[in-house]
């Protein structure tokens, strides 16, 4: 079975694959701490302003969030299938699974965009135009939305990177004569994709199910 070309610094292909895998997991540990800072800020403010968070959460479209969760879970499934297909030299199925993954990722971003638009229309975007009709201190409700936009926004940026990476992988697999040469790269892309999915798995209950 063909493998990715061996880079000069490695002794053999096993070492190269091990290095890539460990590198990816180390990177994901970094990402955990990157989002971890936000989750910490969220926890502190939710403890400080429980009522405001509850009231603010009511203004979100829980159903859009739930649909998006379903979209992302499905995309993780198709991503896992893509990794498997390419490892088993099933090029056609691999490419189609990758494209499905990218399509679902795009769908997620579109839904998120619609949601942002609705939030904007309902004056839920923090800043000068933030709605004033709250039973709680508006600055506390605004804190919820600041965190909501930063957390989902950073997640969306990660999704954008992920969709791009998945499309690049689909292109490389399509172009390459020996599909398994890309197996490792696709697997690494998959790890990243699943990680971004896991971040959303936590964002969903924390942001949408406070009430």
């Amino acid at each position, binding site marked *: 079975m063909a493998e990715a070309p061996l880079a000069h610094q490695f002794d053999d292909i096993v070492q190269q694959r091990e290095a890539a895998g460990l590198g990816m997991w180390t990177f994901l540990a970094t990402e955990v701490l990157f989002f971890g800072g936000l989750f910490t800020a969220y926890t502190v403010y939710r403890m400080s302003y429980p*009522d405001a968070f509850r009231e603010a959460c009511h203004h979100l479209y829980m159903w859009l969030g739930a649909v998006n969760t379903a979209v992302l879970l499905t995309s993780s499934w198709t991503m896992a299938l893509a990794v498997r297909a390419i490892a088993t030299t099933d090029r056609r199925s691999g490419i189609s699974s990758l494209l499905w993954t990218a399509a679902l990722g795009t769908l997620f971003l579109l839904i998120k965009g619609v949601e942002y638009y609705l939030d904007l229309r309902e004056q839920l975007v923090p800043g000068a135009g933030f709605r004033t009709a709250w039973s*709680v*201190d508006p600055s506390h409700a605004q804190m919820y939305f600041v965190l909501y936009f930063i957390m989902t926004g950073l997640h969306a940026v990660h999704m954008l990177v992920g969709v791009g990476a998945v499309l690049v992988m689909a292109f490389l697999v399509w172009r390459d004569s020996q599909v398994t040469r890309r197996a490792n790269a696709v697997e690494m892309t998959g790890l990243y994709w699943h990680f971004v999915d896991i971040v959303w798995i936590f964002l969903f209950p924390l942001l949408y199910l406070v009430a």
Partner: protein
Amino acid sequence: MMTADPARGFSLWPESASTGAPDIDRVYIALLGLTLFFALLIGALALGFGVKYRAGAQVIRDRIIHKTPLLEITWILGPFLIALAIFVWGAVVYMDATEPPAEARAIYVVGQQWMWKVQHPGGRREINELHVPSGEPIKLVMTSQDVIHSFFVPAFRNKRDVLPGQYTYLWFEATRPGTYHLFCAEYCGADHARMRGRVVVMTPADFQRWLAADPSAATSGESESASGEAMPPTIDSPAFVRFGCDDCHQASPTPAGPALHGLFGQRLPDPSHGSATVDESYLRQSILEPNAVIAAGYAAPSTMPSYANQIDEYQMIELIEFIKSLRDAPMREALP
């Protein structure tokens, strides 16, 4: 606006003027001794081995490896026990230095770029100066109008950050009348270096005279008052009326809100936090966020509106001082 520093000469040791200062000095001196001991030990080892085993020196160089980790255990356990002892000692002194006595006299401090504003309970205000009596515990109730500052009096060996949006406390009991440095220790912007002032410690009698002197007549420093022993000034609070506090917080038979007299200093049962002591922070928070803490027996959410963004720090001090003045006396029916 900067008050002249108290004049001092060159010295290697800071002067000491509070009851807590010697405690902190003692920990410091012990640490100095420890530092000296270890620095000399390491120095002696380096010098001793360094000279004895220098290249070219004719000594027996034994290459037996020590198989027992006895040495390692020594210098793991030794520092551990020393560290533990200093931790406990430091913690005890720290708790004494940060826990104000219940009977301490409260004085309010508001930091703002780049000056210290002080308000005494009787209404007397000063800027970049703090007059206090000696021999009496003083509790500073501090907040900031803008960024973080830090109230630091080296002669008292104590400092505390002054934060916007909340009260922090610094307590001390001055021992010697005199004038002492007051610094802002937390960087706060362009003129941070000039946010200096002085603490004037007076005998209790002098302090009473100073307090009673007409605030508008006193620009800075002590102004002599011929009126002798001053009466504690009567506290009334225009803010209490202006913000409509009296509409609900009256000693009437069916109050919409809890009566306030005797409230300060009480320990209230509170379902979400166990219990809460009514101090300055509690009153402040209850005025700004009525729902933050609901004492047991009251309905949540509170019907009281939030006064956040309506009330400035000085009105807040006025309200708190007014509530504190309502010790056991029934509330007056008519406020001025």
